């Protein structure tokens, strides 16, 4: 048996998640976020599914999580969600979700498909004004919008007045990071 003690790399290609600060703002890579997509098949009940999962499945433009913060879901389309498992990127989260959700749903692993970044700062408004075409007024705690950031489709999940998580395509992680870095530099000029 070959030695399989491999070193995991983050989406940006480093062994540790990247963090940087721009004035009062910080930008950090969330390397340990497990993700799986969840779609309810036609005719299924979202309420029954939410009950089986023990998770409120949010409506358009929103995200919702459990009280303990171990599981959350982002609305991505009618009867479709991106389910987040913080800290569990190395686990079979899709398998876990499938076991909980039962039948009548379609689930795919998404952990490696996304690169996740977190912006913390005194106010998100100046960041959003420079980030893309999304209306900053529409981004409030509890909302999650997919929009365009430097020509890339990214999900902006607003966790609080001071925290915005950006989920972008993992294959373009460095581009997403560059876009966020550039935006924050412009904010603190």
């Amino acid at each position, binding site marked *: 048996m070959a030695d399989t003690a491999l070193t995991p790399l983050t989406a940006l290609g480093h062994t540790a998640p990247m963090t940087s600060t721009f004035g009062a703002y910080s930008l950090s890579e969330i390397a340990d976020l497990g993700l799986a997509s969840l779609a309810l098949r*036609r005719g299924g009940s979202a309420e029954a599914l939410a009950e089986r999962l023990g998770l409120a499945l949010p409506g358009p*433009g929103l995200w919702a999580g459990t009280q303990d913060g171990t599981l959350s879901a982002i609305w991505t*389309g*009618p009867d479709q969600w991106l389910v987040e498992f913080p800290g569990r990127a190395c686990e079979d989260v899709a398998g876990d979700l499938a076991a909980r959700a039962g039948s009548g749903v379609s689930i795919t692993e998404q952990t490696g498909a996304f690169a996740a970044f977190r912006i913390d700062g005194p106010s998100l408004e100046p960041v959003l004004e420079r980030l893309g075409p999304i209306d900053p007024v*529409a981004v409030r705690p509890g909302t999650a919008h997919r929009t365009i950031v430097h020509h890339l489709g990214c999900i902006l999940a607003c966790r609080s007045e001071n925290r915005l998580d950006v989920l972008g395509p993992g294959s373009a992680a460095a581009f997403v990071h560059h876009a966020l870095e550039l935006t924050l530099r412009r904010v603190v000029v």
Partner: protein
Amino acid sequence: MRIPHPLLGLRDLREFTYLGDAALIDRPEATADEDKAALNAHVFLRDNPAGTHRELWYHEYGDRSWLVVTRDTRTHEILGAELARDVALAAGRDR
């Protein structure tokens, strides 16, 4: 230009891509030879109105929904937007 997404509210034009006339939803069956003229018209022939036009837009950088947007081609005023799925269901399609 902003499009009033029926689920997500006003969204910027840059999140959308354009396909064309909303009549594209009503694809004729064209299994028999006599239906070929209808299929030909569906594929190749378009009205080009100066005024109100119903057209298909895709929310590519958003929730990836197809919308039927009613737009005035003279002023670019957006008069309304519906989910294409709802339009198809209302027209008697099964999805």
